[in-house]
């Protein structure tokens, strides 16, 4: 009763307001009232709630979007999703607010005489297809390239791969997940022979200790962090933060341990040293399930163009590994890592205690590392030596930053060396792809070409004459944009950018294609814990904005590959997914059928006989285990995971007299990656309007820098001016400065170094040398 009165009352008030506004309109023609109040929606409005995954990070929270009169007007957490159980973070709650932004790309824009001219989409796609065809006939297949995204949906990634590798026949396809996940992939492949984490988020409910390696989860994976905090208060689980910067995560942790940049390699080895020295090794596990190997060292840093590296693994034994570890006693490591001997022993004791359950979490600190693959290997070493892996509450867990970095980039394989199943170098995988795609197997080239950084170097050199980017903003997110921006601006390369909003990348485009945002199309994403999530289109896209997958198909048709893409516009997502599923049939990677995905809030693969596999490699949970033992690391031919001997090596650029500070870059809770979406959401922009450079208070004091003062940061590559931030959001260690990279008006990536991990080719955004001066 009460409710209806308030409802009626708010209705009457609304009517009264409207009558006042109408009266005003007759008196003052052309009068405008503040829009937000005019459209104010009563609280009990009859919203239609539709399920989907969040658009932002790799956690993959389930969301419910409230639809009213064909518009998305509200978001809440999906209580049925086991990922977030109804909770979201501030970005998630406000995500849909960006799509109505006034500068939304609604029509195709074609650059004519230096100006962008609105063009019908059909004509723009003609231009793209013709340009692509001409480039191929003039300069060959490898002169065209495509750069996609971990935000592309699974069908979009699949069509991109089929189009480039199956139809055109070039491996010039890479994606921005190279910048965030590549080291995790090579880490998994080298240690276990198969990609993606063995555990799942439910580990949080079982673990006694959470150890985060260079990872500010409170800001980057806040929903998971809240789940950890809940366990901390309910079960007294402990959080240990191991990082180079004091953050919110450190404040919430039970112990915060700081280390000198790059020395995480040494500390991880020291932990293994202590585990072996104190006889905490799970001997039967290591004997049954592990091999030991070493690879090449002094691999370089990929700083020069056309850099090539292939690792040469060599089998060793446990004794040789023990001998190698002798250089990594806590006493020796403590000298250069600035981690106390006590802290190293403390960490080792936690890992070594057979009665505690531990999950290690990491994200960009470990992956964006010139020895990122090694660092991933080293964390696995610790878990393998102690046998704490693939069990509820025990295991290493690599987090992701994009909503479908796993689902699209890694599983569909939008990397130059990847196919939807396996790699291009493997003839069997090529045959499989050729069979499902119905193309001659010779068309799929066996040699990988450009990874992300090298792709943009090739653009700069003039080797690539045509590049098409989708759902990504490389001119803010690449390292050393001071080289790649002028490179993309060169006339030698035709640039096509598909995006939802104008970005610094679309500023250099020859053709800009308007893409639809995630809830404006059907799609599927795959999150960090192998969960595939489906959603249906919820609202119409504005103007001519179209799903990326459909724009690929349209261009492919115009280039004469129509028979390879026999999908219908209405139903292409379903048709593509069903075709893609054939690649992963079987118990090791079986994907759930679409009918199941439509019903459930996401399903974890391998999906076998109607059941998700939550812990892989463990015979109790994983039906793919076949060796009769408790564990089977079936990614490797002999079912054994590899413990890698990986040494400590210095960073390519270290602070010196001229450039005395480390520069670390990263993110903040309010903004997601390059901010093209979150900065268009008023709540988030108002809370974090611009980037900043963070100092340790002692450094600021000795330099005489006060909060808010403009500071110019310069490296050997470029410079960037930002306001100083002292004692605000975080606290870098002495001798280090930190800058978030979301701000397209303060491009810190002009300053960063494009050195990368030779195995994964993932750049290191966390370490380079800079000098600071008052601007």
């Amino acid at each position, binding site marked *: 009763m009460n409710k209806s009165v308030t409802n009626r009352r708010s209705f009457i008030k609304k009517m009264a307001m409207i009558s006042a506004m109408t009266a005003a309109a007759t008196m003052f023609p052309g009068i405008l009232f503040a829009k937000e109040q005019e459209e104010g929606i009563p*609280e009990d409005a009859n919203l239609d709630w539709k399920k989907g995954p969040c658009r932002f990070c790799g956690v993959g929270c389930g969301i419910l979007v*409230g639809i009213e009169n064909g518009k998305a007007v509200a*978001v809440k957490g999906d209580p049925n999703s086991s990922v977030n159980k109804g909770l979201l973070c501030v970005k998630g709650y406000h995500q849909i*607010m960006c799509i109505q932004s006034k500068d939304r790309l609604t029509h195709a824009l074609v650059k004519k005489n230096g100006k962008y001219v609105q063009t019908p989409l059909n004509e723009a796609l003609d231009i793209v297809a013709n340009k692509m065809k001409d480039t191929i006939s003039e300069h060959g297949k490898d002169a065209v390239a495509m750069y996609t995204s971990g935000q592309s949906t699974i069908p979009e990634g699949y069509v991109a791969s089929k189009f480039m590798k199956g139809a055109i026949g070039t491996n010039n396809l890479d994606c921005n997940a190279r910048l965030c996940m590549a080291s995790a992939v090579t880490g998994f492949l080298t240690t276990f022979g198969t990609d993606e984490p063995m555990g799942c988020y439910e580990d949080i409910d079982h673990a006694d200790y959470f150890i985060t390696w260079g990872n500010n989860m409170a800001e980057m994976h806040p929903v998971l962090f809240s789940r950890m905090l809940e366990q901390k208060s309910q079960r007294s689980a402990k959080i240990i933060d191991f990082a180079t910067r004091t953050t919110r995560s450190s404040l919430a942790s039970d112990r915060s341990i700081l280390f000198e940049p790059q020395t995480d390699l040494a500390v991880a080895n020291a932990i293994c040293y202590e585990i072996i020295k104190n006889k905490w090794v799970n001997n039967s596990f290591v004997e049954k399930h592990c091999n030991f190997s070493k690879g090449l060292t002094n691999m370089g840093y990929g700083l020069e163009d056309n850099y090539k590296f292939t690792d040469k693994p060599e089998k060793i034994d446990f004794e040789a590994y023990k001998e190698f570890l002798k250089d990594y006693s806590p006493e020796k490591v403590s000298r250069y890592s600035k981690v106390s001997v006590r802290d190293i022993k403390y960490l080792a004791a936690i890992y070594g205690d057979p009665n505690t359950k531990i999950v290690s979490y990491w994200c960009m600190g470990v992956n964006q590392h010139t020895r990122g693959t090694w660092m991933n290997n080293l964390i696995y070493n610790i878990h393998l030596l102690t046998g704490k892996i693939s069990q509820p509450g025990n295991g290493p867990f690599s987090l992701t930053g994009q909503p479908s970095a796993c689902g699209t980039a890694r599983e569909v394989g939008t990397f130059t060396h990847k196919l939807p199943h396996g790699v291009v170098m493997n003839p069997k995988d090529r045959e499989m792809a050729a069979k499902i795609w119905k193309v001659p197997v010779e068309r799929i080239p066996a040699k990988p070409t450009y990874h992300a950084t090298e792709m943009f170097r090739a653009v700069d050199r003039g080797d690539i004459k045509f590049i098409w980017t989708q759902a990504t903003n490389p001119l803010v997110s690449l390292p050393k944009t001071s080289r790649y921006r002028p490179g993309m601006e060169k006339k030698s390369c035709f640039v096509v950018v598909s995006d939802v909003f104008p970005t*610094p990348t679309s500023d250099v485009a020859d053709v800009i294609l308007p893409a639809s945002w995630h809830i404006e199309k059907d799609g599927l994403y795959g999150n960090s814990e192998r969960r595939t999530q489906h959603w249906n289109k919820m609202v119409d896209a504005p103007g001519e904005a179209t799903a990326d997958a459909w724009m690929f198909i349209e261009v492919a048709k115009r280039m004469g590959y129509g028979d390879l893409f026999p999908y219908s516009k209405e139903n292409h997502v379903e048709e593509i997914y069903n075709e893609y599923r054939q690649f992963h049939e079987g118990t090791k990677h079986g994907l759930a059928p679409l009918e199941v995905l439509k019903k459930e809030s996401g399903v974890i693969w391998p999906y076998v006989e109607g059941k998700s596999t939550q812990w892989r490699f463990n015979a109790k949970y994983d039906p793919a285990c076949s060796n009769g033992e408790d564990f089977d690391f079936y990614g490797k031919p002999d079912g054994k995971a590899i413990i890698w001997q990986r040494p400590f090596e210095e960073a390519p650029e270290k602070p010196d007299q001229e450039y005395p500070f480390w520069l670390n870059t990263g993110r903040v809770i309010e903004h997601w990656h390059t901010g093209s979406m979150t900065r268009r959401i008023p709540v988030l922009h108002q*809370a974090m309007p*611009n980037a900043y450079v963070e100092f340790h208070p002692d450094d600021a004091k000795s330099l005489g820098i006060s909060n808010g003062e403009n500071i110019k940061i310069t490296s050997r590559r470029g410079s960037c001016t930002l306001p100083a931030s002292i004692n605000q959001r975080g606290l870098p260690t002495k001798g280090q400065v930190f800058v978030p990279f979301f701000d397209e*008006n*303060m491009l810190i990536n002009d300053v960063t170094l494009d050195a990368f991990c030779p195995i994964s080719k993932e750049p290191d955004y966390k370490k380079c040398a800079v000098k600071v001066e008052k601007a």
Partner: protein
Amino acid sequence: MKKRLVIISFFVIIFISFIVIWNFSYQKGLEKAYIPIIETPTGDFIPKERGVFKRFNAEVDYLAMPIDEQYERSLKDYYNNRAYPGAPPSIPHPVANEASFGGNTCIQCHENGGFVPKFDAYAPVTPHPEMVNCRQCHVTKNTNGTFRAFTFDKPASPKVGTGANNAMPGSPPMIPHQIQMRENCIACHAGPSAPKEIRVSHPNWMYCIQCHLPKETQTLQINASVFLRQINSTNEE
């Protein structure tokens, strides 16, 4: 004889243990109900964020607390006790010890709260129990009159309720007030002393600023001409 000795020694032991236990409990009884003050953390800590996770390690189960409607505070009472929104509240009750700073008097009730029969109310919880010189900012009220005729334009307190601070129906409200020294949200927004209008429904999700951000509006003037696209630097209208 031996038997007697055993019995005597038995009674002696009983007597000694009685004295020990009695002494121990007597000493315990002398201690005041005093909760040790949380130390200001040393070394690396972030001043602006220091209170964010405070109080969640205290054994306070907010979800299990019943709502005591009879003694609820209202937001009106809350603001009436402050000269302006954000000002330190004055002390509306007689104080136990005028000579004390407050470190071991005020804190007894105001660190964790609880019902105080003497004042018929729940003690409000302070968001900064580590600052023990309470009387530096909080003063008592000993007269109702003013020295001279007085006027002061008290700014309106931030509005609360549906739609006042949130951007969309059902979206989390943003923080409409300054949070300096009040980074510990839960002190005022949960428990029996929280004003009923601002009591949070989900105090168990400790990490408040994951969803609720302070409304900050300062923007920078930046040269946006770096790019071809001539937009306002911060994309504001």
